[in-house]
């Protein structure tokens, strides 16, 4: 798979492009606000980072890089803050915030915002499923991060094929053609393949590599309760996006092993997600970008 994309980009170009990927505008904007205020509570910065897959990815990539040579992988932003210190995290985050935001954001692709919203929704649901299964808060956070980053491959393909990938996403949505089919046909690589490639290259924790590379692979996901949470959350978030929120029966689309692990069928799980609907709505509100490119008022006062 990697060979295909290297036909368009050299490996060096590919990873260089990934390095310079800026944060999503809403979080970039908040990071700039926060870092300008010397008295801003560190937890505000953590909150913003935890809701942005790109900033999260940059920071996890760095702390897990060979510079640190850690025996144990760092899997969440809070862990990274304790490990590196809040000021280092703040300066790293500032470096990722797109500076053009200071002069007003340019138009931002609708589909990229849509990926962000889906990622956040998946993250929050994955965390809830983990909590419901009785996992520790640390493990639930790991599931949150795995959910937030599962579609990072799509963000990467957006960067690599600007315009073209947006068209693919729209085509998939409008015509009901599976995205991976279109990806293989049009750009010769799937978002899961590039997700896996990047995860391995950046020496991310195994859960994240599997989540980015295998979130559509039910056999792989059935091997780990954490991946089951991500797989299921992705499915539910997808249905929510398609307007079936809290209502439509999902049928028997979860494999038996997963149903057994979760102890509930998809209908019951979807019903339980209704309990955290407010939490999801609040998170998604923060991603709102007005047509003129400015942020929603709620962000500046959050």
């Amino acid at each position: 798979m990697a060979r295909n994309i290297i036909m368009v980009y050299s490996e060096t170009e590919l990873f260089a492009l990934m390095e310079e990927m800026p944060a999503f505008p809403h979080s970039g904007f908040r990071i700039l606000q926060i870092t300008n205020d010397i008295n801003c509570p560190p937890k505000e910065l953590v909150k913003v980072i935890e809701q942005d897959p790109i900033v999260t990815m940059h920071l996890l990539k760095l702390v897990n890089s060979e510079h640190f040579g850690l025996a144990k992988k760092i899997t969440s932003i809070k862990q990274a803050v304790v490990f590196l210190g809040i000021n280092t995290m703040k300066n790293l985050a500032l470096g990722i915030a797109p500076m053009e935001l200071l002069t007003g954001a340019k138009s931002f692709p609708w589909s990229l915002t849509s990926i962000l919203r889906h990622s956040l929704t998946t993250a929050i649901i994955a965390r809830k499923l983990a909590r419901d299964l009785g996992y520790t808060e640390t493990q639930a956070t790991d599931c949150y991060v795995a959910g937030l980053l599962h579609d990072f491959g799509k963000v990467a393909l957006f960067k690599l094929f600007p315009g073209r990938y947006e068209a693919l996403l729209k085509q998939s949505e409008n015509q009901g053609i599976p995205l991976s089919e279109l990806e293989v046909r049009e750009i010769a690589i799937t978002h899961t393949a590039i997700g896996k490639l990047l995860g391995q290259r950046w020496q991310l924790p195994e859960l994240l590599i599997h989540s980015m590379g295998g979130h559509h692979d039910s056999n792989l996901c059935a091997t780990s309760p954490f991946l089951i949470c991500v797989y299921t959350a992705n499915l539910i978030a997808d249905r929510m996006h398609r307007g079936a929120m809290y209502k439509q029966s999902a049928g028997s689309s979860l494999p038996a092993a997963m149903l057994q692990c979760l102890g509930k069928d998809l209908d019951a799980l979807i019903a339980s997600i209704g309990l955290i609907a407010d939490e999801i709505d609040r998170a998604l509100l923060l991603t709102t970008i007005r047509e003129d490119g400015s942020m929603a008022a709620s962000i500046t006062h959050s």
Partner: protein
Amino acid sequence: MKLTFRGVRGSIAVPGPKTLRYGGNTTCLEVRGDQGELIILDAGTGLYQLALTLFGELPVEAHLFLTHTHWDHIQGLPFFIPSFIPGNTVHIYGAFDPVDHKDIRQILSRQFEYCYFPVREAELKATITYTTLKERQVVQAGGVTVSNIIMNHPVLNFGYRLECNGRSMFFTGDHEQLYNIYPPGEEDWAEYQLYVNEKNKSITDFMHGVDLLVADTSYTIQDYPQKKGWGHSTFDANIDMARAAEVKALYFTHHEPVRSDDDLERVFQEALSRKKVAQYGPPCFLAREGLTVDV
């Protein structure tokens, strides 16, 4: 090993009548291994005082370990005279800069740029080597084994553990006790506290049982609430850390620049009494410029 404090002041050098007894130079520790190996911890203005003592033992081979590269820990470096003399060797070790992706040589070479200093780094006559350390990377400097762990400061800061013939010491560099960024009762408090406890334990495990701990003690507990997050510890927190790590003796350093000798002794005595050090230990001392102690 023998340890000599060459600079014990934090933040900025403060020479003057009020700092005569403890000294005004910024951080620099000279450690001698049992075979006379020269290990230097940090290159604050105290490094110049050390440099003046080295002319009798040329050629010099020095191993300089930087905890971090804030000004008060590197300001003496351009004035480390052995660097200008052919035949000397200076091995410099330190952390990389994760924000600007610079290794230790790139970070330090800026000090020698045209607008900051008249001599270029390339013109130094001694053999200078640079090693950008990873966390817990072990360096053998003659008979002295030096290892490191990342502490808590607003820049990547290594604490160093030195061992030689069964004796050991640890220097924190600049370090603030870790704290929870969430108030108790908030949803994220418990999870964050778990990581804080884990990190604190990894630090106390790393320095466990050392014969001598030298710790950044900039603040009193009265100072601290206004200085929280600035990256420095208190007398009380360091006594707690020393007890948790079961160290044999604790030296307080990185004295606040505004603290006169009299004030320093007063707040030191208050902390000893508050923490019942006479009863529960460990033996505590104020680091003083020029003081040599056996490790």
